């Protein structure tokens, strides 16, 4: 065997090992219920903003604290705390993808992606302050 073949083999093995080891990085789409089963694990939940429930945001007190309620695809409504500023026009969103983790009945969210009804408006992502 040529040494180039050995090097290539090593590289390919290394690539496969890296791929397997980072596979855990990929997250999953969950519901609030399935997220509760793995508290503290960072996942995505797709839901709809519950407009009839109260939204709390008082930037004078804390600009990085926004509380709202969302209903997931299974139909369960959950309280969500977003550690960022209230996304502009979240009321107009059609669907929101929330990234975060479930803990003690509350979903702690650090990124919100909103799907807007307008065909001219691109989807919008709002980051929490973890960058």
């Amino acid at each position: 065997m040529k040494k180039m073949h050995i090097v290539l083999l090593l590289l390919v093995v290394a690539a496969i090992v890296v791929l397997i080891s980072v596979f855990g990085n990929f997250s999953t789409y969950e519901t609030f219920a399935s997220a509760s089963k793995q508290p503290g694990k960072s996942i995505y939940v797709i839901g709809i903003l519950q407009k009839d429930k109260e939204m709390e945001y008082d930037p004078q007190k804390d600009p990085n604290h926004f509380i709202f309620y969302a209903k997931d695809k299974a139909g369960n409504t959950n309280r969500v705390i977003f550690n960022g500023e209230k996304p502009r026009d979240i009321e107009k969103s059609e669907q929101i993808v929330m990234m975060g983790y479930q803990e003690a009945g509350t979903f702690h969210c650090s990124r919100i992606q909103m799907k807007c009804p307008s065909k001219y408006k691109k989807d919008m992502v709002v980051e929490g302050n973890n960058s």
Partner: protein
Amino acid sequence: MEFIGEHLRPGQLGHFFVITSFVGALFSAFSYFRAARTEQTDPLASRSWLLFGRSGFVVHTVSVISIFIALFYIIETHLFEYNYAWEHSSLSLPGKYLLACFWEGQEGSFMLWTFWHCVLGLVVMRTARGLETRTMAIIALVQVGLATMILGIHFGPEFQLGKTPFILLRHVMQNAPIFSSPNYMNFITDGNGLNVSLRNYWMVIHPPVLFLGFAATLIPFAYCIAALWKGEYQTFIKPTLAWSLFNGAVLGTGIMMGGAWAYESLNFGGYWAWDPVENASLVPWLVLIAGLHTLLVYKSTGRALSLTFILLLLTHLLVWYSTFLTRTGILGKTSVHAFTGDGKALTYHLLIVIGVLLIVAMVLLVRRWRSLPRIRSEEETLSREFWMFIGSVILFLASMQIALSTSIPVWSPLAKWISGKDFAPPTDPMLHYNNIQVWVAIIVGLLSASVLYMKFKNSDARVLGKRLGITALIGLVLAAGIGLGQRITMWQYDIMLFAACFGIVANIYYGIVVQKFKFKKLGPSVSHLGFAMVLLGILLSSYNKHAISFNITGEEFNPGKKTAEENAKENSENELLFRGVTSPMGEYQATYVSDSLSMKGKDKIIYYNINFEKRDPKTKEVTEQFTLHPDAFVNTKGEGVLTVNPSTKHFWDHDIFTYVNHIHGGLLDKSKSDTISYKSHKVNKAGDTVIINSGYMVFNGLDRKIADARYVPVDSDLIISARFTVYDNKDKPVKDIAPIYILRNRREILHIEDTIPGMNLNVRFENLMVKSPTDVTTEIMVKQTDSDFVVLKALVFPYINVLWLGIIIMVFGFFISLGNLLSRDTSALIAKN
């Protein structure tokens, strides 16, 4: 029905040229194909087929330019009966952005791509000589595929092939009632306008450059196909190398401009976010660079031909795959700025084109695989080709990791079928990519520092060891200095820092000592120097990127991070700035001074003027002062959605990057200030307190003496004032106020309010209720509109200029190599004649 006021001629002409461009490309592809097939057997027929092919391509090119002109005419003269003009432009749009309207839409950006292929195709036609028939057959074939994208021909009610930019508005919205009246044009007076975030000078120049970079990948692809087709592997080397160098430079510039645009006008908080759209342009570039290097290996040693073909063929296919990812909407929920999806028709259309190109490439490669020239002997460990080959493989593997992670929506249905899990992108994409790519950066950085010192075939180990030892030592010292100074503590980033510093030192040393500064030969070392600077710039600017806006008022909440440090960071990167109040921000004192309005067409843009001041800690003198103007606008195109743009202060060694996150009051929502009504409060004796939003007021008693200039005395008046002292939140007295109560002619009650403008406070003496001489109740009405404020995020990017400079130097290096290659080519030609 006859419609009044429509201008149908430009659209008809445009559509005619769409058809001729398609037919021209088809004819050209067929003729060139015939010319290639008859080249050996019947040179005379081949010659006439060649001429047919050329004329077909010229017809195609002229048609494409005509389409461009027709569409530009429609946009420029504001013919809103056409959907494209209506959707992407408006009357008030400044002239310089008219071109940007082209690439806002899907059809326009396909046209831009087609146009560049035409231009490059004409150059290939004139320069490819013996390979003209085959390269041009492929180029024309790709043009056929692209032309179908804008054909817009219906087959039955369900299926439509492509989307024409010349479709009328009334055809797009057939069911809208407005189009049932013949004079509907009277009601359509203005278009939708261009998305405001695209109204940026980067948006005028960045898409053409990026698309030229994408388009240029076609040429190495075509040359590789031609070489395989002909079964002749020498003549393609030089043109492919030249085009790959050109391609690497242009695509690299395009990616940099994309980063600069994101940095200047999007609030991503940076120039690179591993966003799928960004990745989609980076992956082809990485594969192209890998292919360029293996081609150099092949040119010098005759090795690595098969990998060269794989990489260069793949580069162009990846550009199509990127188009598929970003245009069809398949990325949907995973990307911020993926184009709006045009749905299924486009998905299948693109899959068919990719499929055809893939099959052509695969079939040729498989058929020629066994006959490709190979060198049986083993390469030396200290040879340039050995390490260049390894570097290329690593670049390729790295690009595949990025492609695989970006393609989640493509493979997740399969993964769900296998595992039952619904896979999503990594929750921290930056970390996901950085953790892997840092190692690629290290290895490729070390290789690009040392590989030039090695010679093809074999190198003198002693000389090599000495040179590498010296430069690595200097690099190590440099890295140690920077690492300590910049407090880079994570060990893998320290290694990356060393790789970058070693790269910088080694390539400068190589250029000066080994190459003796011969400009023509400096290409590789200059590119490698630029690459090392890019690595250093990325490392310094992102490792020590930090917020200087801290929330000093907020309550803590637990973001669930592992360390207290991370928790605190999450809590505090936004800072609240009241208008007129100065707050500390990093080493500065920041003040939200004012907001100002500017109309950009229909869109209101509001600038927030934030003053930054730095004072000398001892003398308290202002040593530095500047104003930043982050803005916000109501996007009329996005149904009134608010969008913000950052504002950046550039210093030579760092940038201060700010944008507003939240806006309260001011010009943007005046309504909020006015809806607040008066609240009633009653006080009885001196010392009583009234709580207001931003402090409190203490009652000092009533006073018959009036010293208010606004009051003109009238004899019959009974007049009295209520004296208060207003304190702010920090118990500091702000001002004494005395609203006045007047009883005129014993009937008419008048009030003179007192105000504190800085606190938005209005106080009215509403009523006086006297029950007995000792029991007097004073009723006052207090209105305090909320103070205007913005929530600002301010980030510092240290040494970001190293990154920009690095890219420019790298691109410059490509052009030096290209110039050298072309001049050798010409001089060889002259010598021959």
